[in-house]
């Protein structure tokens, strides 16, 4: 773990935090599920069964490693690529699959594109598409938690490109000034759609941007589950001790396209891809567990099989669910429907009664 500490840490940090081996095995299982689910969803999109998908292959260790170092009570502010975090949080697979289908089992009522989910009971805040906005939210929630004396941290997830956003700047500055117990987890996957990391900003690392806000920034190998875990655990301990925020740059790679609308062959080389494929974070953790004697080939096969099966079941179930209630369009704009929304709703109701749904 290369460190680009911007400012001296001010609070005692528990050194050498390490997850127990059994925990790591279970994290590995989560990474496998993420990988399998990701591939399955890309296929579903190609088959036209879901409308869109944002894959995250290559970022499993960073995401699961980060989530693993957090407490259940900590609040997560994700972007749209955080499947590994969602799974690590314990969000049930069927809930996620239903969201991708936008069906009546989707707890957010088919309102958003796939990948833009969130569940209050898992303290996993609903994502939006505009990049960066969640970073300020995480700072505000951290300040609110401290005001209420809740011993938690908040964690925002965002990419290398998002360091250029307005909210990155505003949020990190507020966090520094107010010493918010918040961790900024930047997955530098080397690309913002077609823009490579080195054209995004001229600083040598992204982590060193923390110095501009007066708190530590850390670079970590995001392909290394344990390294990520340690960096996050350390940052969390510091934050809870009143030592303020940390920016963590996890260096990873987006092995797939930006989204199913993207064709990365237009802007990046096969050679680069191949190089990073060799550093596959899932394979790496498997190897480590194998070497530690915690995982046999047979067990591993079982893990992959179980993942595939669980996901297949969820997909099958999802496709049987009816679509969302048409009249739900008018709900949740406000706590109560306004008279004008009632009128618009009645209009749609009449339309549906008269002519049936227009074709999609």
């Amino acid at each position, binding site marked *: 773990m290369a460190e680009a500490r911007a400012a001296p840490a001010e609070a005692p940090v528990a050194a050498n935090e390490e997850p127990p081996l059994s925990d790591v095995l279970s994290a590995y299982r989560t990474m496998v599920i993420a990988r399998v689910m990701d591939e399955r969803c890309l296929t579903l999109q190609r088959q036209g069964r879901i409308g869109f998908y944002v894959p995250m292959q290559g970022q499993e260790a960073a995401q699961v490693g980060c989530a693993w170092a957090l407490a259940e009570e900590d609040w997560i502010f994700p972007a749209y690529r955080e499947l590994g975090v969602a799974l690590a949080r314990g969000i049930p697979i069927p809930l996620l699959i239903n969201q991708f289908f936008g069906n009546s089992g*989707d*707890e957010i009522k088919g309102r958003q594109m796939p990948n833009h989910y969130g569940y209050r009971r898992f303290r996993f805040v*609903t994502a*939006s598409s505009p990049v960066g906005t969640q970073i300020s939210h995480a700072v*505000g*929630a951290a300040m609110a938690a401290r005001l209420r004396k809740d011993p938690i941290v908040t964690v925002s997830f965002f990419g290398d490109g998002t360091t250029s956003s307005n909210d990155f*700047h505003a949020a990190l500055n507020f966090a520094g000034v107010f010493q918010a117990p918040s961790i900024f987890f930047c997955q530098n996957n080397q690309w913002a759609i077609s823009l490579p990391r080195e054209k995004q900003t001229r600083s040598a690392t992204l982590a060193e941007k923390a110095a501009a806000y007066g708190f530590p920034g850390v670079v970590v190998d995001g392909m290394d589950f344990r390294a990520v875990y340690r960096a996050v655990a350390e940052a969390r301990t510091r934050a809870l001790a009143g030592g303020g925020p940390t920016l963590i740059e996890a260096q990873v790679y987006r092995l797939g396209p930006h989204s199913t609308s993207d064709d990365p062959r237009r802007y990046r080389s096969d050679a680069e891809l191949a190089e990073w494929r060799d550093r596959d974070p899932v394979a790496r953790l498997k190897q480590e567990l194998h070497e530690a004697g915690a995982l046999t080939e047979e067990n591993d096969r079982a893990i992959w099989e179980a993942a595939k099966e669980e996901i297949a079941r969820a997909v099958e179930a999802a496709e049987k669910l009816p679509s969302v209630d048409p009249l739900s369009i008018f709900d949740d*704009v406000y*706590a109560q429907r306004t008279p*004008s929304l009632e009128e618009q709703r009645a209009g749609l109701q009449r339309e549906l009664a008269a002519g049936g749904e227009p074709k999609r």
Partner: protein
Amino acid sequence: MTELTLVQAINRGLQQAMHDDADVVMLGEDIGLNGGVFRATDGLQKEFGAERVIDTPLSETGIVGTAVGMALYGLKPVPEIQFQDFIYPAFDQIVSEVAKFRYRSGGQYPCHLVIRSPYGGGVKGGLYHSQSAEAYFAHTAGLKVVIPSTPADAKGLLLSSIYDEDPVLFFEPKRIYRAVSGEVPDGDHRVPLGVAKVVREGTDLSLFAYGAMVHPALQAAETLASDGPSVEVVDLRTLSPLDEKAVLASVEKTGRAVIVHEAPRFCGYGAELAALFAEKALFSLKAPVARVTGYDTPFPYALEHLYLPNAARIVAAVRTTMAAG
């Protein structure tokens, strides 16, 4: 009851909420030690501490974004934007996040906060200390927009906004912060959102206004009272959601409508009122609907007295409308 100016009424409303509810927090530029550049938050940091009345760095993006995070966590933040003209750096947070959080989360994450900001002209503020930006927010589904015109309403609508479950943009007519005063109920005084108020009854023509413009509207109605038409004045108070029933009732009664606001006319808030009449009260209309508004230009400095609608201009519009049918 206490006699207060409008800005004092705001201050008392904030104090009341902060006193009654530990979840109410405020954040903004110069609101703490300095008490706000208009003194709307005077004394509150002293009373409630710097953890609840937070002086922030100079970033509206950060102010609103941080407030959103606090709201998601369960607090009731009341961020201040120093002048409405400076709300645009926070526009993304307001339109993309504040307005859409409840909807996009299927109701899981309400985002109840009140963004307070002084708006409008009449203070020799030029282009960037005079704007009336209400139409942008009224057009944004998921937001409520409230503008008081009297001290009692200012306090009552503010407290209702703070306790409302939805996000409210609360715009304060800075021009009459001190120019208007009146009796304000003590304690937890509430005025319901979404309810317009007929502030003067009349039979021949309805004047619709809000905020600072209610006063020249009333003045125009008075001027005309002796020999001219009988003019009704409706103070909208909540711009979104609009009290459609009340405004339609007035126009159906009088058959004539003149709409007054400071903002530029084109696609301004008045357009929605006029559209509503053209849609739902067309056959009651005896004369064309008129709009007395700011011009379709940026807000000028030296000539603001010509830019702003005033009683004389409203009187003229009423006369023209009466003459037209």
